[in-house]
């Protein structure tokens, strides 16, 4: 996937690279060719972009190779491997070209490599966690960085005064402070690379990572102030300059944040109007975020802060506005870009280190720096944490502090900054470069290697991945409201009070302004979780369904026939699981064998997927049509097909322009319920149909209890494929049961208009019809059967944004017919229902 994305990636970078290093020679186009050349070598014209693409390719391939061995990557962080690879490559380049090439250029780094990483981290920042810990993050970022810079710089100066640094290192206090300012900042790229693999708990992660992002402003200011002081010469620095330095800290940080927020606002506003040009939505996100970065850089504000704030601020609205596909595109492009940039950075870091011409070694300086950054980092963390813990509800304990101290990795930012130093103004630049390289390598490699065992050894609370549940979401909101209310009662304007205020404001004005109306209407977190759970159930169901078939030797639904043994086993599996849900939109054939009456259900994989874009209906039909039919006895065969087309609730406001069609959002659920009827002709034998002793009847869900129509027990016993519960790990069972309700919800959202129903072939089983006009595939347990009466099966709901259209329904009809022929033997009573759910009403 990485490789596939390379061409995409190559384009912007290639263009960038071209500007960076213009092609050295115009090449042959200048002179007229002697004749028509059959073959012309034009290396120079493509050299720059070609090299860029090649390097990324190398880095990506290296990544693939690293991950071939799980053992290696589980022990060694990827960043270490990349640096080592860079070292090796650098050595090769040095040996071949006799000069160091392809180094990490500060310009390339700051303009092209850093922004994707920062945007990625800002955009996908867990904002709630971030803001809950904002105080601690800010403290560590501002106070901590200042502390580190000054103490390290001063201590190094002291070291020099003590004579432990070789006198050839010509640096004064200001030079050391400058060096301290660039070496003190924890690096977001390195932290991200290492901590992502360590999986410490979220609070710890967000504190270290948030610090590394936010300290950029401090680093930039300190670096610039010190740099200009050094360039002015310490004699010329006046008191007002110090004041300006302090002031510029606020200007740079607040200015950067403001730029980011302005662009976030613009971005959200722009995506509100893209509904007719969905295709540019991902592009907009990247463009405006990049514009924020460049703007901040142009105004010499904190660009990292700008992009972080831009990503953080716009996400909620952008995600609501853009289409589902765009969301995926944004996510993957962002991840790909960030991953590539990170890979390239570490590799180039390794390569750059080889160039011995730019560095000069001084053991005293190197060792002193290493010791001081570790020592002062730890000291700073302990001091700050002690203060913070006076205020924090959940104090950071000692182990957290150890990890935080040890996790202060330095990285490419420091390296790029030190390269940017002016050798004429800072005579000790070469020593600083060498020291920085050593520090970066030490932190990334040694600390990166050891932090995982350390975290294990200290038993640091790890992050636990909880599946989102509706309960958690609901309770979380409840607690928020409770706390806000209690603060109101006590009259204390605390965190919860302000958060509540902000949410009110956001709901009243900001969301109204920045979200398109349809998105705003359906934007609710609880609803969101519910929706996602449903989707996940559906997807996992399909996945599991496919797995079952292949594991039992039934490869694909397209196979014409299956052996009955497999059927039996599958059926039994399903039976045992006893799920009450019939949600799975799987196709089931039920056959009855003479010996084993109930052993008759056959599951078919739901052709390709649970839902498909509408466009691919034909594909659905084809795969669907291939249900193998066991040649054994076919008693009654009742097949009902239900097609739920989940349509979007699109804005059907008075504003006609708001109506919007989006093809990619239509979702079709195709299900076929094959119900078995006993040969004895027990038309009403819903109970007898599945008398297997192995059935564990699930207790009826409350939905079944409450909603009479859900417990409707058809005369037709409908078999449901419930295999997920069987095959899937146990914890999925509950999820599976829940997905019952999810299906119901998909089918049952109300609409003002009656669903369009098409009944294709005549239904011979007239007596049963009135009670149960429609069957969904159901589980073997009759109690769990439910059917959708047409009146209830009204509208599908989804967050997609297309509106129902009649033609679609007509498209579906051939599908049903097709299935007919292939699947049902002549004379079998069958009935097909094609229900077109559309979302007619407005919510």
């Amino acid at each position, binding site marked *: 996937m990485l490789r596939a994305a390379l061409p995409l990636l190559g384009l912007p970078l290639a263009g960038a690279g071209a500007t960076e290093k213009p092609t050295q020679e115009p090449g042959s186009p200048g002179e007229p060719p002697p004749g028509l050349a059959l073959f012309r070598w034009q290396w120079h014209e493509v050299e720059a972009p070609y090299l860029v693409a090649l390097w990324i390719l190398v880095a990506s391939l290296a990544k693939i190779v690293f991950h071939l061995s799980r053992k290696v990557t589980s022990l060694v962080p990827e960043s270490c491997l990349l640096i080592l690879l860079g070292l090796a490559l650098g050595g090769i380049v040095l040996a071949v070209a006799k000069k160091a090439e392809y180094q990490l250029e500060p310009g390339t780094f700051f303009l092209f490599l850093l922004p994707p990483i920062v945007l990625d981290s800002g955009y996908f920042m*867990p*904002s*709630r966690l971030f803001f*809950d*810990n*904002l105080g*601690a993050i800010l403290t560590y970022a501002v106070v901590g960085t200042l502390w580190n810079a000054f103490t390290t710089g001063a201590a190094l100066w002291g070291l020099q005064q003590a004579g432990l640094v070789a006198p050839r290192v010509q640096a004064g206090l200001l030079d050391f402070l400058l060096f301290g300012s660039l070496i003190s900042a924890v690096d977001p790229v390195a932290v*991200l690379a290492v*901590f*992502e693999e360590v*999986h410490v708990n*979220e*609070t710890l*992660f967000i504190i270290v990572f948030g610090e590394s992002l936010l300290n950029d402003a401090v680093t930039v200011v300190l670096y610039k102030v010190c740099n200009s002081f050094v360039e002015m010469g310490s004699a010329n620095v006046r008191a007002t300059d110090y004041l300006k330095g302090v002031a510029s800290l606020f200007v740079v940080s607040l200015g950067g944040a403001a730029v980011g927020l302005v662009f976030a606002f613009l971005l959200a506003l722009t995506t509100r109007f893209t509904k007719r040009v969905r295709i540019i939505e991902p592009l907009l996100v990247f463009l405006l975020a990049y514009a924020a970065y460049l703007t901040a850089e142009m105004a010499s504000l904190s660009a990292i802060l700008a992009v972080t704030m831009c990503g953080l601020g716009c996400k909620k609205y952008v995600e609501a506005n853009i289409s589902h596909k765009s969301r995926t595109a944004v996510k993957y492009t962002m991840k790909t870009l960030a991953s590539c940039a990170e890979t390239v950075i570490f590799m180039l870091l390794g390569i750059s280190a080889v160039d011995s011409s730019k560095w000069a070694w001084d053991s005293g300086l190197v060792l002193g720096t290493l010791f001081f950054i570790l020592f002062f980092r730890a000291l700073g963390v302990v001091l700050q944490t002690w203060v913070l813990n*006076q*205020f*924090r*509800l*959940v104090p950071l304990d000692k182990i957290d502090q150890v990890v935080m101290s040890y996790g202060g990795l330095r990285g490419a930012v420091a390296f790029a900054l030190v390269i940017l130093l002016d050798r004429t103004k800072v005579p000790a630049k070469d020593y600083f470069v060498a020291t920085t390289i050593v520090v970066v390598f030490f932190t990334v490699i040694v600390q990166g290697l050891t932090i995982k065992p350390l975290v294990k050894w200290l038993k640091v609370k790890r992050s636990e*991945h*909880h599946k989102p549940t*509706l*309960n*958690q*979401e*609901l309770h*979380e*909101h*409840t607690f*928020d*409201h*409770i*706390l*806000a*209310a*209690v603060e109101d*009662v*006590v*009259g*204390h304007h*605390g*965190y*919860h*009070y302000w958060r509540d205020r902000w949410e009110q404001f956001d709901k009243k004005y900001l969301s109204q302004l920045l979200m398109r109306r349809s998105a705003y209407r359906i934007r609710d977190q*609880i*609803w969101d*979780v519910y929706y996602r759970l449903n989707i996940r159930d559906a997807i996992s169901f399909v996945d599991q369904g496919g797995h079952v078939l292949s594991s039992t030797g039934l490869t694909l639904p397209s196979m014409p026939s299956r052996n009955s043994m497999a059927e039996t086993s599958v059926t039994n599996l399903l039976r045992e699981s006893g799920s009450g849900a019939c949600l799975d939109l799987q196709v089931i054939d039920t056959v009855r064998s003479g010996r084993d009456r109930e052993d008759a259900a056959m599951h078919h994989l739901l052709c390709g997927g649970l839902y498909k874009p509408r466009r691919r209906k034909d594909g659905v039909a084809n795969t669907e049509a291939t249900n193998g039919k066991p040649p054994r006895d076919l008693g009654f065969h009742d097949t009902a097909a239900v097609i739920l087309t989940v349509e979007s609730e699109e804005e059907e406001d008075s504003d006609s322009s708001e109506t919007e069609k989006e093809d990619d959002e239509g979702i079709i659920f195709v299900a076929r319920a094959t119900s078995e009827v006993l040969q004895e002709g027990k038309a009403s034998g819903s109970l007898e149909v599945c008398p297997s002793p192995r059935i564990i009847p699930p*207790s009826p*869900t*409350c939905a079944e209890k*409450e909603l009479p129509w859900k417990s409707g027990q058809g005369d037709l016993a409908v078999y449901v494929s419930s295999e997920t519960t069987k095959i899937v790990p146990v914890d999925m069972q*509950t999820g599976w*049961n*829940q997905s019952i*309700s999810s299906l119901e*919800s998909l089918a049952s*959202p*109300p609409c003002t208009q009656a669903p369009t129903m098409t009944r294709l072939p005549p239904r011979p089983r007239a007596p049963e019809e009135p009670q149960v006009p429609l069957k969904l595939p159901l589980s073997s347990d009759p109690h769990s059967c439910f059917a959708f009466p047409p009146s209830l099966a009204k509208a599908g*709901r989804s967050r997609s944004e297309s509106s129902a259209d009649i033609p679609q329904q007509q498209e579906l009809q051939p599908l049903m017919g097709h299935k007919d022929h292939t699947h049902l033997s002549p004379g079998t009573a069958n009935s097909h229902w094609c229900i077109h759910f559309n979302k007619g009403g407005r*919510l």
Partner: protein
Amino acid sequence: MGSRSSHAAKIPDVDSIRRETGFSQASLLRLYHRFRALDRTGKGYLSRLDLQQIEALAVNPLGDRIIDSFFPDGSLRLDFPGFVRVLAHFRPVDEEEDGNRDPKEPEPLNSRMNKLRFAFQLYDLDRDGKISRHEMLQVLRLMVGVQVTEEQLESIADRTVQEADEDGDGAVSFLEFTKEGSFLVVEDGHAQLQASILLAVGRDFLFSTIPSRVSLASLEPCPFSRGMELSIWPGLCHVPTTKAKK
């Protein structure tokens, strides 16, 4: 408004209140001033109307229920001890006292269980110890802000109840409420209620300028919906949940 006296002695029964709730003198004094301020007419107790007049509470979807929780058993008057008793639920959990507390003493109001019980009672309208589907539906109706139809709401309620319902009685008992499905995490050999720990995570110091120990934030929910946001961090979500689940 109210007395300008800074003497806690003005508060009736100050000692017994303090013993019961664990608030410090200063906190009690502060709360007492607030109590007097809320009591606009100086009648010595609070009525529902007094609380309803708090502006922000009016827009709080759970505002009415929270007000109700101040008036247990249908009483109409809220005196100061009652006021403080409710607020005591929101003190931070005293970790160190948990271990060596006298088992004979009643559980302090700010224990995790009592915090959870307070929240639970906001759901459990009929006080039967269970959140029925109907009650869940009512809460959801308050909470789900967007225009969701009744049937959609019902299906959410169904799923929510099913999710937490372990014994299959179609309702969420208090025990199930505390467990939240998979929240019971075994740690260090003894079972801890993760859910209740979540109630006390991550207060931000910048915003909690409240003096003394009256930490209102202690009923803080989990800092973010675990898992949901987690999936955003690809690196974080690969961890297999090795913790034993019950």
